[in-house]
């Protein structure tokens, strides 16, 4: 006992020598520090400057070119008069709503099943659910196209919705699974112990506790659906061009500030949903 105490004292003594107090004033920019700061700034510039340029030029009062001519909201006003664009946006929202609803139901049920039941090669099946992370979008798009063609399914609303459910469901699965990881199963037992049957237990206890995970997954799924171009491009049919497909076809006629404006709005929309989703994921259970 006494030897332990003395050992501790020795260690504490040493620590004072090894870590002398830092001087109050440090040189502000040592070479290493300068490099670190520059690299950091360059990285963020690399990520965001192109986007900033896009947004800035959506307010540029000029039909073409990369020269600033003055501020205008004209391009945004035009957007809202462009029937074809508005139709494409509406179709995007419809597909996103349907595919989000589908992926929420399937993803939540999959997460509950994977969490509750033990079965053989569970890790393998869990890994398969990371499909959109593993499979390149172009491969997913081509394979879906081949599949629908082989099954003689006409391309349009149905093929779009099914494909969007397929790539967004895993994100709901992941967020709900994360929520379930710190879920005390005895809470469900307590509900049953107090007279709630399986369904009431799910509705009154399990579902409310999973809700932040479900909503956060739904926001991600919605964003992914609205943003998707590659897979949609392959599986869409006549009359079902989504907003990203419309933008792409508009680009064929040249980059106009109108395209900049619609992209800027899409960016704002997606960013809002993703931030909301992150906030919900961070929030601890009560």
């Amino acid at each position, binding site marked *: 006992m006494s030897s332990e105490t003395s050992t501790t004292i020795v260690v504490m003594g040493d620590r004072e020598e090894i870590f002398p107090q830092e001087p109050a004033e440090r040189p502000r920019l040592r070479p290493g520090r300068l490099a670190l700061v520059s690299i950091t700034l360059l990285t963020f510039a690399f990520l965001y400057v192109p986007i900033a340029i896009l947004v800035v030029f959506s307010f540029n009062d000029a039909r073409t070119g990369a020269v600033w001519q003055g501020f205008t909201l004209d391009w945004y006003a035009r957007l809202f008069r462009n029937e074809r664009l508005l139709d494409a946006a509406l179709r995007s929202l419809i597909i996103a709503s349907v595919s989000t609803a589908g992926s929420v139901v399937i993803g939540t049920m999959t997460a509950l099943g994977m969490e509750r039941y033990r079965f053989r090669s569970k890790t393998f099946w869990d890994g398969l659910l990371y499909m959109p992370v593993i499979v390149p979008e172009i491969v997913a798009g081509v394979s879906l196209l081949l599949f629908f063609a082989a099954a003689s399914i006409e391309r349009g609303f149905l093929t779009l919705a099914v494909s969007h459910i397929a790539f967004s469901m895993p994100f709901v699965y992941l967020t709900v699974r994360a929520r379930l990881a710190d879920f*005390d199963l*005895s*809470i469900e*037992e*307590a509900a*049953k112990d*107090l*007279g709630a049957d399986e369904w009431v237990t799910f509705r009154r206890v399990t579902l409310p506790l999973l809700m932040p995970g479900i909503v956060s997954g739904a926001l991600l799924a919605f964003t992914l659906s609205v943003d998707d171009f590659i897979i949609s491009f392959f599986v869409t049919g006549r009359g079902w061009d989504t907003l990203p497909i419309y933008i792409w076809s508009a680009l064929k006629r040249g980059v106009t500030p109108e395209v900049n404006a619609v992209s800027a709005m899409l960016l704002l929309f997606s960013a809002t949903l993703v931030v909301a989703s992150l906030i919900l994921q961070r929030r601890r*259970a*009560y």
Partner: protein
Amino acid sequence: MANDFAVELREVVKLYGTMAAVDHVSMSIRHNEFFSLLGPSGCGKTTCLRMIAGFERPTSGQILIDSRIMGLTPPFQRNVNTVFQSYALFPHMTVEQNVAFGLEMKGVARAEIARRVGEALALVRLPHLAKRYPKQMSGGQQQRVALARALVNRPKVLLLDEPLGALDLKLRKEMQIELKTLQRDVGITFIYVTHDQEEALTMSDRIAVMSHGKALQIGSPLEIYERPACKFVADFIGETNFLEGRVTAINGEFATLSVGAGQTFTGRRVNGLRVGDPATLSVRPEKMQLVEHPVDGAVNTYEVTVFSIAYVGSDTRVIINLGGQRLDVWEQNSTSTLNPDDYFFKPGEKAWLTFKPENALVLAQ
């Protein structure tokens, strides 16, 4: 007659794969009894409780609650409630909503729910925290909410799974007394799972001592401590000294045991031992005395050497050497003195150990 027991287990077996978590356990728990399932972790006590609650199904055997065979009856149709080790409060509901949950499920009228929730919270002395969420409360308070949430349903039987396990020692002691008082007041059968023998002894009317899925002994705290039925129970409950040997003589309810180099010890005989059987003498440290001179005519008197002494306030714990065996002897410090010499044995000194045969037990191996 049929209504004599609140809960009955008949030859209950629970297998996990080939491992028997509960191995042919039978016990009958009386109405209004405070009954404890006591044993080390993995002894099957919690599995028994979970089978009574309906969370697990027995592999074979029967469980009866209020004389009704439970069979496949799901938890939500059994007239029992559980206080979980982790409390398992609903984190998204206030204290009030937590306590009201069971009554809501039964379809009790709103006004009645409000009244009974109030009563239940008053019973656990938490009416002022009704609007709080579980996360805003201390462990002890959450524990009481869990208790109120179960008791408000007026179950036939309350099942408690190590409910005090997460509390600190002082709070535990308080809650032990509180729980016991509560149980007497509400008149509900309590089945209490614990690995803490002192807790079980303090609160229980009867205790079932479990090990490796079997109920080794069922009896009052007094019976369990003073007349353990086997070595495991004698060892698990309290402290004891074991001396192993062979039975050389039987005299009515006493048996004499010969140990190693020919020393003989006499104690109460249990388990129908016969001459020649291997057996173990169990004698508790506080039931032996150390004296300076041999006691005339005493049956169990031996010369020993004092190995070490430890003063622990209420008593002095002496370790002695008896023919190579170390034994613990606790001498109560019945006088108050500051002179160390008054505790007249010192390490290395010779002394005489004595105990009465009726204070020792001869158990089967």
